[in-house]
Structure formats: structure tokens, C-alpha cells
């Protein structure tokens, strides 16, 4: 698969099912929210056209809604409405409101005063004037508002994928996080086409003469409802459990693709942003989520990791990697760093992460508490050695904790001085710093070494990721050969992709492994 660059068309053909579902969802989302926006906006527009004193307030409020960034608006919705289609529809509705209210207002107030006066003088009631004169005459302007709202909605609906409401955003944001251009385009091009097509169709409606407009104004609500129902078609099939996966996980071989091909796992899946996923699982919006096995939120929200019994997630065992010349320069270093080896398992690391991420304890304190507890801590020696060991770390909590532990161990057990260069961004920055003699070592993960640094072929991945030792051995051998960098002994924990569930639910359903999960889903 990796041998040749896949073309966009091939990607779209391969993913035709998903593409169809996402497109339907996208259309559905756009029009459900549009339908409700018309339902709310049209009467509001009519009311403020009657009571103009209200117009400033109402239009101002709708205008403010319009200026709220879409991501923020979606964020506000989660505490109120949870995740999934409800908050997405409400958010989209709010965006669609302004153009509909404003154009209804403008349309009605713009009706020729003489015509309105004639209608009154003929003896029409207010209701008759509204339905027979004002609305028909304002219709082209109102339609222009609906047209604007439609285009806005098609655009904003891409963000619905952040909160598990589906749509073409799944491809777009999945593609962005996987750095897969085809995937981005497979989402972006249909989304753009939808906007263009709907805009065009509505412009045709707008240009109809009054006679045809009358007829089509009856058809319009029906078409709207019909398009809205698109959303429910793909989600109609039921499933006992609901999974929420990040867009990145959805597109990875060591993610959802592997779950499908190796486990044959078929679960009702929604795509959701990493930021809200754990909380959604906690609030029972989701039953199964994809996460990182040592994430502090695991503990915070009472989740357990399901055992990957078929080994589709490559192991991400952490170990310090050191330049070989640094090992020579600091003879005591290897021994000191290995003090930590085998001391921290997954649940311990999760707990440590929980302390920094959720209890907001400093990494330094967390590191010291741990060392003291395990009787590894020694006060810093009065150093009489000039040489300084430079420690690096990536820019997240777990790495800060490890860097602090190593720093304390080196100060306590050797005469070397320490300088830490924490927060070195991503893998690439850290690794470059190491090879260019800017730092002496940093904690790395076997999976990252294999996939991000060595970038081996999928065949090799399949071979070496069967168990943690083969992965470790492979990266150790290759790093030595290619970069003269040494992998020291693993610290013990595995910060890999993992499926997780609420502890209680997993217990009551007796699900411990992914195979258990599959069996449960297939039962009955």
C-alpha cells in the first residue's frame, strides 16, 4: 500500500461507502438545522417587521451569535447538550439564524408601501396581508437569506465532526491529523461542491416568477424535510455500544482499520475530537473510545483499557535513548538511568499523569514523591565534577515527569551536574537535538521510534510489532546501526493507542479484551 502514492480517485473509490455516509450526514445536518432556523427565524423576522422597536435587539443578538467562533460555539454546547447531532444542529441553527431573520425583516419592510396600503384598503385582515401580500413579495429576499444560511451551514457543518455529529469534517480533520492530502480533499471537495450546488439551486428558485414561486414555496418545506432525513438514514442501524474515535485513529492501520481487519470489530462509531472524547465516555455518551493508555484522564474519568489480545496497536514502551558517545563520556550514566527501569507500569504512569494533568501538581513534586515512595530518592550531592548531563523532553506532562526523575537520580547518584531542556516540541525536534549533540538523552517510545523515526515499511511493522520485545529489539538494533544511539532498558509502561471503556460497564459486561468486546457485540 505504501509502495505507490495513492491517487485521490482511488482513495475516494476505496472509501466510497464512508464518503457517501459522510456526504449524506453533511447534507442532513445542513438541512435539519436550516429547517429549524427557518422555523425560528421566519416568525422572528415577521415579528420584528411588525414591531420595529424590537428589531435592533433581535438583529443585534443574532449578529453576536454570528461572531462567536464556530469551535467555541460547539464547545459551549457540550455541557448543555452533550455530544452528537443535538449540539451540532443547535450550533448550526444559531449560525443560520441571522441571515434568515435579517432578510425576512428586510423583505417585509421593503414591500412597496402603496401595495401594503392597497391591501389594507381592500379590507384584508392582518393575517391575509401577511400571507397574501407581504410574504409572497418578500419571498425573493427571504430566499436570498436562506441561500446565505445554507452556504454558511455547509461550511460550518464540517466542524460537526469534532463533537461526533459526523459529516465531511471526519475526512477533512482526519486527513489533517494524519497528514493525508487525499483524505483532506476527499472531504473538502465534496463539501465545496455541496455549497456550490445548493447555492446554485437556490439561486434558480430565487429567479422563479411569482406564479412558479407560489408552487415551489409549498414544495420547499417538503424538500427541506427530505434532505434533513438524510441524516437519519446512515445512523438508523442500531448497535449495542457506541464508540467514539478521533479522526486520526479512524484512518490508521494501527487504529480503526486494524480493529476492523484483524478483530472484525463492527461497532457503531462516531468521530470525535480528542478534547471531548474522555468526558463523553464518562458521561455515558460513548461506551468505547480510542485513547492513550497512560493518559491521566483514564483515571480521572474511571476508564479501563481493554487488552489488545491480537496486538494491533504497536507497543509504545518508553525508554531513555542516549547517544553512545555520551555513555562513554558519562560512565555512570547508564547505571543511573536504569534505576528507573521496570519501576513504572501503565497504571502508575496513569496515576502520575493524573496528578499533573488533573490535580495540577508540579512535575517536579510528582517526580520527587514517586522517588521517595520507591526509596530511590537521594539528596543531590555536592558536585565536584564539571561535566553536565543535558536531558531533553517532549512537550507533554509525562515527559516532564520523567525528565525530572532522571535529573534527580543523576544529581543524587553521581557527581555530574544536570541541565534539562524540556519542552522540545515533537519527536522530530527532540531527536534532531539528540543527534546534533544538543542534548545527551531523552525518553522515547518504541512505537514512535519505529514509525516516526525509522519509518519502516508496513511489512516490517507487521513483523516486529507482534510483541513488545521484538519491537524493542528492532529499534535498539536499528538505532545503534543508523544513528549510534542506544536504547536503555524500558521504564515499564506502554503509552500506546488503546480502546477504553468505563470500568463499571466493562465489568458488568465482563469485557476485558478487544476480543471480548467483539464477542459481546456479535452476541444475540
Amino acid at each position: 500500500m505504501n509502495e505507490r502514492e495513492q491517487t485521490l480517485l482511488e482513495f475516494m473509490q476505496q472509501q466510497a461507502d464512508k464518503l457517501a455516509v459522510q456526504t449524506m450526514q453533511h447534507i442532513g445536518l445542513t438541512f435539519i438545522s436550516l429547517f429549524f432556523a427557518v422555523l425560528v427565524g421566519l416568525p422572528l423576522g415577521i415579528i420584528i417587521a411588525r414591531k420595529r422597536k424590537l428589531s435592533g435587539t433581535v438583529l443585534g443578538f443574532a449578529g453576536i451569535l454570528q461572531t462567536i467562533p464556530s469551535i467555541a460555539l460547539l464547545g459551549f454546547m457540550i455541557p448543555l447538550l452533550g455530544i452528537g447531532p443535538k449540539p451540532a444542529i443547535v450550533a448550526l441553527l444559531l449560525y443560520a439564524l441571522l441571515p434568515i431573520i435579517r432578510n425576512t425583516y428586510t423583505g417585509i419592510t421593503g414591500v412597496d408601501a402603496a401595495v401594503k396600503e392597497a391591501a389594507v384598503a381592500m379590507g384584508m385582515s392582518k393575517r391575509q396581508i401577511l400571507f397574501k401580500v407581504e410574504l409572497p413579495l418578500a419571498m425573493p429576499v427571504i430566499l436570498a437569506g436562506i441561500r446565505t444560511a445554507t452556504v454558511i451551514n455547509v461550511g460550518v457543518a464540517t466542524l460537526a465532526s469534532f463533537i461526533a455529529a459526523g459529516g465531511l469534517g471526519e475526512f477533512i480533520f482526519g486527513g489533517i491529523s494524519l497528514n493525508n492530502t487525499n483524505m483532506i480533499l476527499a472531504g473538502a471537495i465534496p463539501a465545496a461542491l455541496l455549497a456550490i450546488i445548493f447555492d446554485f439551486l437556490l439561486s434558480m428558485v430565487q429567479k422563479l416568477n411569482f406564479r412558479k414561486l407560489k408552487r415551489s414555496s409549498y414544495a420547499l418545506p417538503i424538500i427541506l424535510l427530505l434532505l434533513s432525513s438524510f441524516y437519519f438514514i446512515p445512523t438508523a442501524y442500531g448497535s449495542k455500544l457506541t464508540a467514539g474515535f478521533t479522526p486520526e485513529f479512524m484512518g490508521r492501520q494501527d487504529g480503526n482499520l486494524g480493529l476492523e481487519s484483524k478483530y472484525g470489530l463492527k461497532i457503531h462509531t462516531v468521530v470525535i475530537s480528542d478534547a471531548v472524547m474522555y468526558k463523553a465516555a464518562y458521561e455515558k455518551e460513548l461506551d468505547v473510545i480510542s485513547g492513550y493508555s497512560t493518559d491521566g484522564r483514564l483515571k480521572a474519568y474511571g476508564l479501563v483499557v481493554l487488552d489488545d489480545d491480537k496486538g494491533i496497536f504497536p507497543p509504545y514502551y518508553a525508554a531513555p535513548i542516549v547517544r553512545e558517545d555520551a555513555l562513554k563520556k558519562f560512565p555512570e550514566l547508564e547505571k543511573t538511568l536504569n534505576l528507573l527501569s521496570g519501576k513504572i507500569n501503565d497504571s502508575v504512569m496513569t496515576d502520575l499523569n493524573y496528578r499533573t494533568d488533573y490535580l495540577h501538581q508540579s512535575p517536579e513534586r510528582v517526580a520527587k514523591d514517586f522517588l521517595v515512595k520507591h526509596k530511590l530518592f537521594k539528596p543531590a550531592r555536592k558536585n565536584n565534577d564539571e561535566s553536565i548531563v543535558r536531558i531533553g523532553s517532549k512537550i507533554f506532562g509525562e515527559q516532564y515527569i520523567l525528565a525530572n526523575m532522571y535529573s534527580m537520580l543523576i544529581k543524587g547518584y553521581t557527581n555530574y551536574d544536570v541541565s534539562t531542556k524540556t519542552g522540545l516540541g515533537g519527536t522530530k525536534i527532540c531527536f534532531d537535538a539528540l543527534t546534533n549533540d544538543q542534548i545527551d538523552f531523552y525518553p522515547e517510545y518504541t512505537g514512535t521510534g519505529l514509525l516516526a523515526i525509522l519509518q519502516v515499511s508496513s511489512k516490517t511493522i507487521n513483523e516486529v510489532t507482534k510483541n513488545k520485545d521484538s519491537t524493542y529489539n528492532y529499534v535498539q538494533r536499528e538505532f545503534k546501526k543508523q544513528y549510534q544511539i542506544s536504547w536503555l532498558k524500558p521504564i515499564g509502561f506502554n503509552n500506546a493507542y488503546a480502546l477504553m471503556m468505563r470500568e463499571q460497564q466493562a465489568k458488568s459486561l465482563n469485557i476485558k479484551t478487544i476480543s471480548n468486546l467483539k464477542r459481546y457485540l456479535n452476541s444475540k
Partner: protein
Amino acid sequence: MIKVKDISKYFGKVKAVDTINFEVQEQENLILLGTSGCGKTTTLKMLNRLIEPTSGNIFINGKNITDEQPEILRRGIGYVLQNNGLFPHYTVAENIAVVPQLLKWDKKKIADRTAELMEKLHLSSDHLHVYPHELSGGQQQRIGLARALVSDPPVLLMDEPFGALDNVTRAAIHKEFKALDELKRKTIIMVTHDVQEAFELGDRICLMDQGMIVQSGTPADLLFKPANKFVKDFLKDQRLQLEFKAITLLIIWDLLPNHHEGSHTSSLSTDTDLWTALEHFKFTDSETVSISKDKNDIKTVGFEQLMSAFNQYKNKQGHE
């Protein structure tokens, strides 16, 4: 038929109409004449409650109009607007059918009545299914008139109905207006700022200024017995023509010589105004014209005799 009693209308602190009184007899054409802002349109719109008066009462056929539901009241009063006010989204036929539909007429009745009016107003039935904007201004105004007349209301209110038309079209419509039998049966109140039009179409004229009626009376009253300088000045510019138009042959009948030549084929009725009678000489070669008061009372006169009678009449007015 219509009685307006002590009507005032304030817009905020501005007095648009100030305690006015007038009556309109059945089948009379009353013209509300005045410059812009004199309150004439406001007065008209209070008659069908498009504007509610601040104080005072209006009676139509003895009934106070505030006792009636405004929608019902309006369905019984025809209304013609300056810019025709036709519904742009309705065809001509649909426009004419607005009031009948509100009155729940059946389709056949609407179609028959529409056809009848189209013929009377010299409109082709081809026009029924086009939209107003596809018609000329004159045609649109006639459709507006048809819409007001379709339910045959006894009262017709007209707000500068011919104001948007060019002079030629307006003259043609004036002629039709006067000839239309439907209108002869109606009590009409018309607003205009056009003195000529007022004199041509009005049985009586209320000349208004600053929300008050300055003088009300027949065209001849206004011309020859002006209540004050304002009235005189208002009519000054077109005085001679107005006088010719205001004086019918009946008014000067007694001043015309008793002479009859039986040879004349064409004869004018005494309803004819002097202007038209004089114009007669311009278009025919004959030096005289016959005027018949009734079958047995016919006078044959020339241009000179008409002018002399006119001068005598004017002198007489001046001495009264």
C-alpha cells in the same frame, strides 16, 4: 350619505387636519383640493380608517364608521391609489378579484363581473393573465379603478388617481371617467392638487389649506365667489380656462338670445361647459351651434353670443 363632523388628526404635535366638517350627497363627486401637506389625503384616509382620527366622527349612511370592524368597512368602500397599488405578484384578473374573494363570491360571478368591467374600461381580455408591470401606466390605473369598482361599492375614495399619468393619458382617462356609467351612480371623494382636474371632475370642491377647509362649493362658487384671497390666488394662474370650464351652458342659458335655426344636425346639451362649446367652433366649419335644453327648447348661437353671455354672467357675479 357621508358626514364628516369636527374631525381632527394630530401627528405628534403637528395638526394635519384641524376640526373639519363637510357632507357629501349621494352620487356626488366631491374633490378635496389643495397643495401638498394641506391635509387632504389624511382626510381621505380617515374615511376608510386607514388613518384613525384623533377626534371627531364620520358617518356613512348615518352609521358611525368607528362602530364597524375596519376590514368590513373597507370592503364596502372602493379605493384607488395614486401609484395604483396593484399587487405585483398577482395577475390582472387576480388583482381585480381581491375584494370579491374576500367577500367569498363564486368563481363564475367574479369572472363575469371582471369581464364586464374590462369591457367598460376598454381593456382587452388578453390582459387578464398578464402581470401589472407588463401594462402601460394608463392601463394599470384602469385596472386599479376596476379593482375598486368590482364589488360595486356605493362609495369610492380616490387618492390622486391620475397624478402619475402624463397629460395626454390623463385627458383621455378624464373623458372615460366622466362617461363611465358605473361612476355616475357612485358617491366619490377624490383628492387632487390639480386645479384643472378638480374643476373638470368635481361636482363640489373643498379647497383645503393647513388642515382646514378654506372654502367648499361648486367650481363656479370658488371662481366667482371666492371666500378670501387664498382662494383667489389659488385659482389665479388658470383663471380664464377654469371659468370657461366651470360655466355650463345652463348657467348662461337665460343670457343667450332666443333664436333657433332648425337646420342644425348636431346640438349640445346644457350640461356642456362653455370651454367645450367654444372648442366646438375650432373643430367644425359651422359658425353656429345648437343648444338644446330639452326637445322643444333649442337655441342656435354663434361664438360671439356665447362670449357675450359669459361676460354678462361674470359682471353680474361681480356686483352681487
